């Protein structure tokens, strides 16, 4: 079909459904922790501003979580439906890791989510806070298991091959595989950054519109502190992760650098721009800083890293994609550091709330975290090709025995369904963000304890108020975002 093989279609389908999915957990990991912090601040200070922010972001969390759950169920089944050879070959190792994710994380999130979203008037404040923390903890545990499984596929160890399939030998070696700590920390920080950028952008947008409330100031301020602290930290962690990749996946690193070969004794430049050409085996239009690549990657003036030509042609990842996705990620990361530093400078001068260029910059940086996560994910996943389990099982050998026809059909189905469903969901989220934090009455049950008040104050959706009563009216631009 259009010259695509079944393998191509299975890969496109996985990449498509995965890139949608990864964004929702990234936001919910960050938002769940943010909500826990907000509720804790409220319990300690009793200030209304924290309750208002909690309920504002809770609604956005609920929609995002819903989208994450449904797209996640698709992922859980796609490994079996589209990659059955991988499931059969490596299932004895990947299966237990995913089973532990469900047991320790999914059920924890699901079990307490109902109380977190709808239990405000049904359980006491302490118990409600515990539910929020349980959900936040669940999102982090979930990330831990998923990244253990994913990292193991990048840097497999602790296994043997018996009767044509992988058999676990040492579970601690499998879980704590060489790239796992770097990948986990990098991803969790990315989720926090991504959420902080969205929260910050929401605050900046409200301020630009002249809605200067204490709650709006509070969320902008909290987000900027977070970015200030985490963005530089992320750069350091990313550097360590890069060194780890150099050690375990040198072909990926060579592709990230657009580096083809070493002349004897020559230093590796740091390429800022270039167009890696897989056919001609060189990077065209390269503009670089001499010696900088050696300094960063080997911490020496003329240290060398393997070039792509040292790997057989069929063992090289697509350098053009990896080179540029990596640069997009790093570029956005640098802009995040700038944003954090600028916020600190303005805060010192007391002008954080009314410097319009800064607020506009914070607004435009809103989606930067999401884009950087996608770019980073493309870097690492395209970079490991042609392997699905690095050095052990090739992607081409992992696919299910389907014809191209059914795969093309289901791909079309997913594309239509995802754009409709998640497009609408994004429009709803933007509408809710635009509405801004509202004053929330602290209605706790006055009589009885948990479960006594049987009548909900309003329909039990976390979106307790329709978004059509927003002050922009139903004809606002995002309202037609479908």
């Amino acid at each position: 079909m259009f010259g695509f093989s079944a393998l191509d279609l299975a890969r496109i389908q996985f990449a498509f459904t995965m890139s949608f999915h990864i964004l929702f957990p990234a936001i919910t990991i960050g938002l769940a922790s943010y909500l826990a912090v907000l509720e804790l601040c409220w319990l300690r200070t009793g200030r209304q501003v924290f309750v208002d922010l909690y309920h504002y972001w809770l609604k956005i969390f609920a929609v995002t979580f819903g989208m994450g759950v449904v797209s996640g169920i698709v992922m859980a089944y796609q490994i079996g439906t589209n990659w059955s050879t991988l499931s059969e070959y490596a299932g004895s190792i990947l299966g237990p890791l995913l089973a532990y994710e469900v047991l320790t994380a999914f059920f924890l999130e699901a079990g307490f989510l109902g109380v977190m979203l709808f239990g405000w008037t049904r359980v006491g404040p302490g118990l409600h806070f515990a539910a929020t923390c349980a959900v936040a903890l669940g999102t982090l545990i979930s990330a831990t298991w998923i990244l253990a499984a994913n990292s193991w596929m990048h840097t497999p160890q602790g296994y043997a091959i018996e009767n044509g399939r992988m058999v676990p030998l040492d579970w601690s070696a499998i879980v704590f595989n060489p790239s796992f700590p770097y990948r986990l920390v990098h991803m969790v920080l990315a989720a926090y950054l991504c959420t902080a950028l969205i929260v910050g952008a929401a605050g900046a947008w409200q301020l630009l519109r002249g809605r200067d409330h204490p709650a709006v100031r509070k969320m902008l301020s909290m987000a900027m502190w977070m970015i200030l602290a985490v963005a530089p930290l992320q750069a350091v962690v990313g550097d360590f992760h890069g060194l780890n990749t150099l050690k375990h996946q040198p072909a990926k690193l060579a592709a990230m650098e657009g580096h083809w070969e070493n002349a004897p004794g020559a230093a590796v430049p740091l390429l800022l721009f270039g167009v890696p050409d897989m056919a001609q085996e060189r990077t065209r239009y390269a503009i670089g800083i001499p010696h900088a690549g050696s300094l960063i990657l080997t911490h020496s003036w003329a240290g060398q890293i393997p070039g792509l030509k040292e790997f057989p042609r069929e063992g090289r990842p697509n350098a053009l994609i990896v080179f540029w996705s990596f640069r997009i990620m790093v570029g956005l990361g640098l802009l995040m550091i700038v944003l954090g530093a600028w916020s600190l400078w303005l805060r010192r001068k007391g002008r954080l709330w009314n410097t319009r260029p800064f607020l506009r910059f914070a607004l435009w940086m809103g989606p930067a975290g999401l884009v950087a996560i996608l770019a980073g994910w493309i870097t690492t996943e395209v970079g490991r090709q042609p392997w699905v389990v690095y050095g052990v099982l090739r992607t081409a050998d992992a696919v299910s025995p389907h014809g191209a026809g059914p795969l093309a059909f289901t791909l079309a189905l997913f594309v239509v369904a995802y754009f409709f469903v998640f497009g609408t969901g994004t429009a709803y989220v933007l509408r809710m963000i635009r509405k801004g934090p509202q004053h929330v009455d602290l209605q706790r049950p006055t009589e009885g304890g948990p479960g006594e008040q049987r009548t909900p104050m309003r329909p039990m959706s976390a979106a307790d108020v329709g978004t059509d009563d927003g002050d922009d009216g139903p004809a606002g631009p995002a309202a037609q975002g479908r």
Partner: protein
Amino acid sequence: MGIDTSVVWSIIIFFAVFMYVLLDGFDLGIGMLFPLTPDKRDRDTMMNTVAPVWDGNETWLVMGGAGLMAAFPVAYAIILSGLYLPLVFMLIGLVFRGVAFEFRFKAMEHERHLWDKAFISGSVLASFFQGVALGAFLDGITVSGRSYAGGPFDWIAPFPLLAGFGVMIAYLLLGATWLIMKTEDQLHARMVRLARPLALALLGAIVIVSIWTPLRDPAVATRWFSFPNIALLAPVPVLVLVAVALLLRSLKGTGAQLPQRLPFVAALALIFLGYSGMAISIWPHIVPPAISIWEAASPPGSQVFTLVGTLFILPVILMYTFWSYWVFRGKVKSDAEYH
């Protein structure tokens, strides 16, 4: 040790899928009952009875899949690639239905009907294709070596399609009896009226499957009708009739004796019986008719590693799941204040 972990795992997976059928069964049923309850306020109430718990209900489906992959990777690979299209249709249904819970209340008035339709069609799609997948699975999966060897449309056959409708009826009954337990007044009365024909339809479906299965598969016939199995299995049809009788009787009350919990409990019993009957028929195969649980088993290292955690964590999960249902216990009233 003497413990056969493959047997333990097949019981755990049996349990997880059963929990899924029970729990997501009634909330999928609610989606299919939407067309029969056009009143907007009733629909809000129906949605509100499951909004806090549906996510947990659906997690059992993921547990079934992950458990299968961990303990029986060969079966996971064969079943999921063999049932490819029905499963993808089911997933698409679950996507639309799952987001409808949140989107419906966030949509503007004039577009809410779209999410009602998404909720209805998603529930129908997911339920029907779960049944089709189940039917195709029971019908037997063509295997060569360790991989699926059938075609993409093998599931288009009379038995899987019948199973699709059977599962829809089962979920509709679960949904109706759940709402009898959770609602009041005219919605309650409407569900009581619906439950009777649904119970009879489900009984009919069970009878058809029970006659069809042994006729189709001599191995099942031998298992069911040879001694001593026939004596051991004889209570199953008897209990099915008892459950139906109990269900129909419990729907009759009036005044202070209005039907409440009993219809739901009877419906659960009925579905448990049907589900167990199927499990007994295929045991010990995990990919009928070719592969047994032992042939599909992952290495002991994988089964034991996962089992240790499961046996500790599963009871805890059941406890807080129960707690969550407890927090939201009682009737959900229609809300006069909704704008």
